[in-house]
């Protein structure tokens, strides 16, 4: 009996091994043109249900539904380390069938010394969407614009608490710091509290905190209900949309700072140029499709397309300005 099972197993393994080697030799490129020959995997370096996960799953769905890419696309979650675990996983991949979704943490987490891989270790393919930061206060707060707020912060920084959903050195913190610095506030004196699990908005509403640094989408409903007001957003110019178009930018208030919460797709290190070209083209098609425009609207995402070359320049610039802020705070490693 034992022997029989052993032989059976061995046989099975051999069959699979040969089957497997066949499929891996089958995807050599010919003549500079790339066409995917097997299923594509998009990694969301976070758990189910978050922003990265939703973007990846929606993109995969539209790619397949609209027949933009005819190979099956699966989404894999690799949570941990604020993305570092997922990036390490992608870094170990050699073939152009592993993409991942990224946003500013890909810059911030490595700068904070928490990932040994940064954006330069991967191949940026295309950026798709953007969100912007919003600085929100209670409707009855004494400040009516960012300059009022920052004047008070300069006078008595210990009296104003800023709350965000993530730890110092990450997005909610840095977007506020960036704008405050441009307004001349001493960023080392900003009192920042991080409250995960939906507590941040509560803290603002019940008076525990004074300013809530968040995304635009999170603040719209509360503004409509008259509970809070948005002092400023980090976009370059005003955005379109019901209520949203009323949100003043920091720029128009004379504070020369923006912060883009960009979201796009990357490939493994040194991606084959033909494959890169292929994916760049496909993401462009995705971006232009009606189905994707629909998704964008439903989720409150703004269109922000950048192809490979433009993306790299953008990332270099963003990284430089993030690094300068983190250096000043002493957070950069």
């Amino acid at each position, binding site marked *: 009996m034992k022997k029989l*099972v052993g032989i059976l197993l061995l046989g*099975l393994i051999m069959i699979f091994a040969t089957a497997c080697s066949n499929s891996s030799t089958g995807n050599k490129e010919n003549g500079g043109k790339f066409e995917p020959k097997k299923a594509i995997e998009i990694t969301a370096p976070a758990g189910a249900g978050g922003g990265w996960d939703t973007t990846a799953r929606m993109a995969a769905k539209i790619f397949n539904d609209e027949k933009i890419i005819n190979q099956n696309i*699966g989404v*894999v979650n690799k949570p941990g380390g604020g993305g570092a675990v997922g990036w390490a996983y992608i870094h170990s991949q050699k073939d152009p069938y592993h993409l991942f979704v990224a946003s500013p943490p890909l810059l911030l987490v490595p700068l904070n010394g928490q990932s040994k891989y940064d954006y330069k270790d991967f191949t940026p393919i295309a950026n798709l969407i953007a969100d912007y930061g919003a600085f929100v206060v209670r409707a009855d707060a004494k400040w009516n614009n960012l300059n009022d707020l920052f004047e008070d912060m300069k006078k008595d920084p210990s009296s104003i608490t800023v709350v965000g959903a993530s730890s110092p050195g990450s997005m909610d913190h840095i977007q506020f710091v960036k704008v405050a610095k441009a307004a001349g506030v001493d960023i*080392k004196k900003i009192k920042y509290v991080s409250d995960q699990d939906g507590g941040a908005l509560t803290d603002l509403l019940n008076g525990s905190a004074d300013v809530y640094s968040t995304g635009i989408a999170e603040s719209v409903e509360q503004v409509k209900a008259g509970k809070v007001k948005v002092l400023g957003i980090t976009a370059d110019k005003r955005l379109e949309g019901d209520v949203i178009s009323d949100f003043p930018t920091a720029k128009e208030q004379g504070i020369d700072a923006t912060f883009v919460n960009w979201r796009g797709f990357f490939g493994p290190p040194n991606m084959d140029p033909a494959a890169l070209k292929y994916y760049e083209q496909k993401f462009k098609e995705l971006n232009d499709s009606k189905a994707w425009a629909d998704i964008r609207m439903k989720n409150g995402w703004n269109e922000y397309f950048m192809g490979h070359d433009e993306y790299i320049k953008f990332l270099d610039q963003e990284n430089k300005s993030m690094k300068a802020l983190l250096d000043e*705070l002493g957070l950069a490693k």
Partner: protein
Amino acid sequence: MFKFKNQKIALVLFLFSLFYLIMSFNLPRYPYVPVDSNFVPIGLGFILMGLSVGLYFVKDKPMNVKDKMNNKIPKQDLFVLLTVTFMVIVYISLIEVLGFILSTAIFVFICSWFLGYKKHVLNLLVSFIFPVAVYYLFTVGLQVQLPKGILPF
């Protein structure tokens, strides 16, 4: 001095709290908050240290008869436990190499066999149907990817 069980445990806990405290004191400082990230760990370290000293002086309770497994594990059982632990570790290390289906099938079959499951045919059936069913429930039904491994499908 460390004759009784509680005294030995107390020693281990004391050393652990010492280790934890040293690490806590070495945590990097963050200058912008009134209470830094080492505050609670240092407190916990000292509490554990205090408790371990307290435990040193607590007399061992006589063992209940019904907790006889708690008292001493026969050598043979210890061997079984260690072997199963070893099998689980091998299983884990192979899960991303061979894939979920294959590694699980092999593990379930061998582990059940080793623990004395006599119905080999049923065992073989369960060992293959269970992982296949779970795999498809997850990857197709729930869109949660399990390691595919070397299987071509």
